[in-house]
């Protein structure tokens, strides 16, 4: 009886300690909530961003988004099995062009923000997990939009390495396109294609 009580006491102590440790770091879902809240608030309060002011949008993206994304992992997963065949220089260029493409897309989506808010779904993760799935919904007019993130632990915080919009994972979708492009015209062919796409979009905007 006494032994039993001791066991439960130790177990409780261990649990309390574990919770304390978990709280010392930011919970991944709270972190996503914080970032998306900050971004949405900034866009809502800034008429210039809503009107499509590229310079202002890029400042926002640089400050709030870029530091929180692991572009290296995103790019290497999207390039898939060809990643190892690429030279370090090719890898760097792939990452740079892919990043430009994604940032531009994201910036375009930001101008659409009006009266949306982000609601998180319950997190199913253990405190010791180093990779977690955070699921959320963007609510606005019409049907809610599913928006999920894959996060990896980076020091005390987290970094995003994949995004899911309406059930479609970004990396998986690009992996098929990239593989197709590489098997047709090689890694350099893919780099050229991405660069062309980015250049065309930049020209169309200015």
């Amino acid at each position: 009886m006494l032994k039993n009580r001791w066991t439960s006491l130790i177990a409780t102590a261990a649990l309390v300690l574990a919770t304390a440790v978990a709280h010392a770091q930011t919970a991944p879902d709270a972190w996503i909530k914080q970032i998306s809240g900050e971004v949405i608030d900034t866009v809502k309060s800034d008429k210039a961003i809503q009107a499509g002011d590229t310079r202002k949008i890029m400042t926002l993206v640089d400050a709030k988004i870029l530091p929180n994304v692991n572009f290296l992992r995103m790019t290497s997963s999207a390039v898939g099995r060809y990643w190892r065949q690429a030279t370090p220089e090719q890898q760097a260029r792939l990452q740079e062009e892919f990043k430009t493409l994604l940032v531009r897309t994201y910036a375009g989506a930001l101008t659409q923000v009006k009266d949306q808010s982000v609601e998180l779904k319950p997190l199913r993760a253990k405190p010791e997990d180093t990779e977690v799935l955070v699921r959320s919904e963007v609510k606005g007019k019409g049907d809610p939009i599913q928006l999920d993130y894959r996060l990896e632990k980076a020091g005390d915080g987290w970094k995003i390495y994949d995004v899911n919009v309406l059930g479609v994972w970004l990396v998986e979708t690009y992996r098929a396109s990239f593989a197709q492009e590489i098997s047709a015209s090689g890694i350099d062919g893919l780099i050229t294609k991405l660069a062309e796409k980015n250049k065309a979009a930049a020209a169309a905007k200015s």
Partner: protein
Amino acid sequence: MRRRRLAALLCSVVLLAGCATAQRPDPLEPVNRQVFAFNEAVDQVVLKPVALAYEAVLPSPVQLAVSNFFGNVRDVWSAVNLFLQGRIADGFSDVMRFGTNTVFGFGGVMDVATELGFERHGEDFGQTLGRWGVPNGAYIVWPILGPSTLRDSIGLPVDMQASPEALVSVSLARNTMTGLRLVSTRAGLLSATKLIDEIALDKYAFVRNAYLQRRRSLVYDGNPPDEEEADPVADPAAAPASAPAPTGP
């Protein structure tokens, strides 16, 4: 002549569709690419301009009312599908949605139920078949109707029977409603298609991959089991084999 060609096409579709596997979901790619190009052309010339005009002319509350109206009828069909999938509580939730929106939302033009916390499920027959374990089969692009799979195509005629215009007997009214539904749907997709134009390297492949992923996610209610660990750097064998791509139009 025309009918025979159609029959031949259908035969080859069914034959080839049997060859579809998870690694090779698109055995009909050459035909699909042509239909896709045709759809793109129709969209550029007719559907997109009309949708743009619709968006520019009609005030957004009216657009919302139109989309709510069609959504309301879809909720009934969604409830039927939920029951077929054995999801009784969700099914009743959609029945409640329909009742609430029809009575308090003036025949469905206002979506009161969402405000009250009844989420829309939007299930269709293809999803029900998926729940029952029917595999996708080949990816198929239909003229005008767009991306589908063999499985979803089986569901398509059933789904169309459940649209509001199927209940209207006057053909003029029916055609008007079909047109309105198409335009309303297309207008809702304007920003999405603009996005795809900006980010896709090969629009056909992008739409195909996104469609297949989205349908899979819908069958599993937004939470599909992991097919393979998406980290090919750790495991190169897990990367999907890429089908050699024929250069499409």
